[in-house]
């Protein structure tokens, strides 16, 4: 028997009470609400079209490059091999030239770690260093392999894709589980930490230590603590016994967009 047909007198009473309850509440005027919804959806649509356009251009470009150049490149390589072979270059290679090459190679190898360490150690509070390569793009905190990472989602709303998973450690600060998500040139950092009430107050301070920037509370939006880290927006919230934060690492993601993403991952 369907539930509808199984209505008891008590159910009728609840039904009527609920009807009165929902129908009697007077919402604020629709215009403002609609404007915000419309703006947010338009914003989302333009981002989607931009992404589609970029994807299209990228695929077109890839196709263009391949069809135009690959035959030429192969032909040039063959020609080079033939010419070099005919000149006997491979057999008479001057190994004396190698030291010069060896001199260069270690410099390149050594410069990268030095530059990374320098950025990590010298990054001044309040300054966020912009980097291009996402893999080495974490100059403002120390990270280690996370031995027991939480179950990170593969993607976030609005096409942000999981990029990296790690553990943030910094001195005595409580270690935070971290993950970065990437979309074009925008990157988000999501952190999670198991914490009780005593640790809530130190969350911001610890986050600042991990990021090596000053974290400032801006206010509260929809129950999220809105903060700024080096001018980039972030949101923090408590979910059961876990404190979480989602912040913009690079790019221009608005706090509004951030809020929508945070709402959907909850």
């Amino acid at each position, binding site marked *: 028997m369907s539930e509808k047909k199984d209505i008891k007198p008590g159910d009728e009473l609840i039904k009527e009470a609920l009807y009165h309850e929902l129908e009697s509440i007077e919402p604020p005027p629709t215009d403002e609400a609609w404007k915000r919804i419309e703006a947010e959806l338009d914003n989302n649509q333009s981002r989607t079209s931009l992404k589609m356009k970029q994807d299209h251009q990228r695929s077109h470009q890839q196709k263009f490059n391949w069809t135009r150049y690959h035959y030429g490149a192969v032909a040039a390589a063959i020609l080079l091999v033939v010419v070099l072979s005919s000149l006997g270059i491979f057999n008479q290679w001057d190994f004396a030239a190698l030291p010069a090459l060896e001199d260069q190679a270690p410099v390149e190898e050594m410069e990268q770690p030095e530059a990374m360490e320098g950025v990590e150690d010298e990054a001044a509070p309040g300054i966020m260093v912009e980097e291009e390569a996402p893999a080495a793009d974490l100059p403002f905190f120390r990270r280690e392999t996370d031995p027991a990472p939480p179950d990170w989602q593969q993607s976030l709303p609005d096409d942000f894709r999981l990029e990296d998973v790690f553990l943030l450690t910094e001195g005595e600060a409580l270690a935070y589980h971290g993950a970065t998500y990437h979309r074009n040139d925008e990157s988000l950092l999501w952190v999670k930490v198991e914490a009780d009430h005593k640790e809530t107050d130190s969350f911001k301070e610890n986050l600042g230590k991990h990021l090596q920037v000053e974290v400032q509370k801006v206010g509260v939006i929809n129950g999220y603590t809105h903060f700024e880290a080096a001018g980039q927006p972030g949101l923090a*919230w408590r979910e059961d016994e876990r404190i979480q934060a989602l912040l913009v690492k690079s790019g221009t993601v608005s706090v509004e967009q951030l809020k*929508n993403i945070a709402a959907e991952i909850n």
Partner: protein
Amino acid sequence: MEPEKLKELVRQNDNEARRQLFEAYYKRTYSVAFNILRRRENAEDITQDAFIKAFKNIDQLKDGAKFGAWLAVITSNLARNYLKREKRILFTDEETVAPGESEVNYTEDSAMRNLEIDRIRKAIRKLPAEQYQAVVLQYYYDLKVEDIAGMLELRPGTVKSRLHRARQRLAGELEQKGDSACLLDKGGAGDPCPKKKT
């Protein structure tokens, strides 16, 4: 317009279709949010977020005719998450008298029933969010337990249990007033429960 047609238009980012759905469901969506949050500004934010989320994820709605119930699930989930984040217990600290409650014109015949309805309304406001969610879906949107379970991604048994606990809680709230028998179906031969007037 047909619900399925509206859904398809929304899927194609038709602004008119969105606006139509917004106008049709704004009030009840706001009411669902308000009844969980009991704060106007929060209910406003959650209502807007719910519409944005619904329009962006319209592909996930299987049956266009159930847009209202689906939106109510989104709204109540957002509101519940909000409460979890805030760790607030808002059900008892704001004994807000909803508009309309005091505007009821009691006639001699309907006075008792209206009084009971008012009591239940107050008790409904004190329901935990997950029970309120189930109650709204069953009693306001007339959904079957299986449908509610599908929408909330729960087992039907869990939904039944939430509904049962909600009734128990409503009965508990009304116990002092002697109305609980109606809600727990314990009326017996001398059923004191008011019957719906048609």
